């Protein structure tokens, strides 16, 4: 069960090698979280992530999960929920893709969309149903500011996050009053493996800062969290810029 501050005792990470997810898990394990499930494609990285959390004192299990295989989600996640209550599901899988390459290879672009959006729709709905049955729990969905307004440089990724974001908001409304809390997290540019080699955007942040914001959001039972918080204002302005102006911005 979550405590009075929204800190979970059990955590399921979908996308078990995500740096933001692992930073969040570390933070929560330092508090109350004792059981962690890391779901992801079996890999040395996944096992290494599990070992890292075990070293902090958590009981960690890995589970084979593939965002691109929605047919399997019900069975795979069903097994996790059947073992015991999950207080927090962190939906953290996602790929950035390579915009220039993906524009030339539509099949690669579709893979970005299928991972970030289709996979999340399936895993999100399966998780939501299980959380609703247990009458409590949080679903934290890692969205992105990229979904707030599509920009030339990464609109394939951005559109997939826009879909995910809209889906998660609607899911949160659908679950209102059921004891289940859905929180959409919109980080800006996060310095991580995913963005290695990219030019840094203004207001860049770190996985640790996102983790801090998630913990605060859990305590406040927030529905939307921007990281850093200043992006809420910035993006509100950006969203209303005329297309002709936005196009010419160096973003």
């Amino acid at each position: 069960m979550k405590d009075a501050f929204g800190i979970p005792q059990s955590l399921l990470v979908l996308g078990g090698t995500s740096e933001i997810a692992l930073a969040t898990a570390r933070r929560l394990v330092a508090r109350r979280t004792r059981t962690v499930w890391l779901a992801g494609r079996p890999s040395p990285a996944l096992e290494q992530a599990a070992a890292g959390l075990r070293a902090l004192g958590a009981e960690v299990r890995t589970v084979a999960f593939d965002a691109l295989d929605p047919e399997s989600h019900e069975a795979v996640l069903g097994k996790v929920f059947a073992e015991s209550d999950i207080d927090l599901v962190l939906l953290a899988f996602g790929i950035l893709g390579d915009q220039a390459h993906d524009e030339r290879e539509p099949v690669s672009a579709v893979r970005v969309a299928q991972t970030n959006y289709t996979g999340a729709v399936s895993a999100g709905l399966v998780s939501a149903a299980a959380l609703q049955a247990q009458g409590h729990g949080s679903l934290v969905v890692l969205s992105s500011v990229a979904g707030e307004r599509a920009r030339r440089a990464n609109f394939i990724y951005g559109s997939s996050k826009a879909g995910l974001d809209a889906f998660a908001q609607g899911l949160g409304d659908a679950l209102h009053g059921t004891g289940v809390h859905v929180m959409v997290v919109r980080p800006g540019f996060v310095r991580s493996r995913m963005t290695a080699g990219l030019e840094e955007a203004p207001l860049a942040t770190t996985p640790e800062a996102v983790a801090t914001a998630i913990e605060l959001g859990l305590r406040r039972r927030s529905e939307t969290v921007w990281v850093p918080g200043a992006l809420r204002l910035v993006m509100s302005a950006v969203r209303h810029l005329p297309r002709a102006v936005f196009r010419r911005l160096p973003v």
Partner: protein
Amino acid sequence: MSADTTVSVTGWGRTAPTAARLIRPATYEEAAAAVRECGARGGIPRGLGRAYGDAAQNAGGAVFDMTGLDRIHAIDADGGTVLCDAGVSLHRLMEVLLPLGWFVPVTPGTRYVTVGGAIGADIHGKNHHVSGSFSRHVLAFELLTADGGIRTVTPGTPLFDATAGGMGLTGVILTATVRLHPVETALMTVDTERATDLDDLMARLTATDHRYRYSVAWIDLLARGAATGRAVLTRGDHAPLDALPKGARARRDPLAFRTSRFPAAPASLPEGLLSRTTVGLFNEVWYRKAPRAQKGRLQRIASFFHPLDGVPHWNRIYGRGGFVQYQFVVGYGREDTLRRIVRRISEHRCPSFLAVLKRFGDADPGWLSFPVPGWTLALDIPAGLPGLGAFLDELDEEVAAAGGRVYLAKDSRLRPDLLAAMYPRLDDFRALRAELDPRGVFTSDLSRRLTL
């Protein structure tokens, strides 16, 4: 029985809401049926929802609202006992019993608790050093157990000791027979004095507490430096008839139970209304306005015992984020721990305006009953105070290291692995539950969180 409705349930502190089917049985048969049919995620009895944490919520399962079973069956006005349903509130008992010259044996800071809840949390009051906790005055109760059967439980049995303080996890209490305290009037004679700091307070309480049936100290935890732990002591007893001035209105009807009621707190209040500044200001005024020393003032029962009951929904003043109650006890001889914790709380600047210190007398036999002989401090803090979770974890460590414990009826955040150190009879409790309720029919968010 009302139709099942899924509702969001929280404790009085309004943190960590979960959803459950609310079932309000109107007969014992309906209660038994509700227990038999509550499903895989079990059920938990609930009274008036004054437990601060998650003791009376059960995510995804059933919550049995027992306030529909609220009949007073028999009053022995000569012997001083009452037999009533568990859903009867102490408020109702006072209304009925005071005109007959009887008072409840123990009341906490609110009279809006049910008799079932009073046993389940084994509540204590300002008279603990004299009268012990509520279960000491319970002569028998009827318990609806997981198999749907009803057992009569009397003191001195394991089932009694598991249920008194057992947070509703042994079964649903249906009725109880409670021994009452005789009174001549519905007024209190109250002595008030101020203590300049914690040591002064402890010295005064130690030296003179035995002279008073009821005793409590309000303590200013925002005061720092030399004033750390400054307090206002309020102590008294039921006023005898001849203490009432001749010709006074109260003299004509000395047993009339009068309460006052202010408007309810608004449903939605901004976060941070109770900041260090506002609470500091309140505390300053509260301390200054208390008389340095005053003897024998007459006060109504409601204002002496339950000042907050006059403001319905006062828990809303903490805003949407809710609040956390922290109550612990450390034994006599561990005053060093108490001093250290009070100093830490005042250094941490917890905006608490309801901090209360008192002395406990002998413990009662309930396995998870909270009171043990020693000092108990209770305070409430807005849940949104930054770093509060980690800070209270550190206080828990100090409490546990001193052989003390925190109160489960108020808990919403204890680290589960500290529980066994705090409650040495925990294994007995778990063993009895495993035997009595092998399928875990009685389950609450508290029991899940702490694996009770």
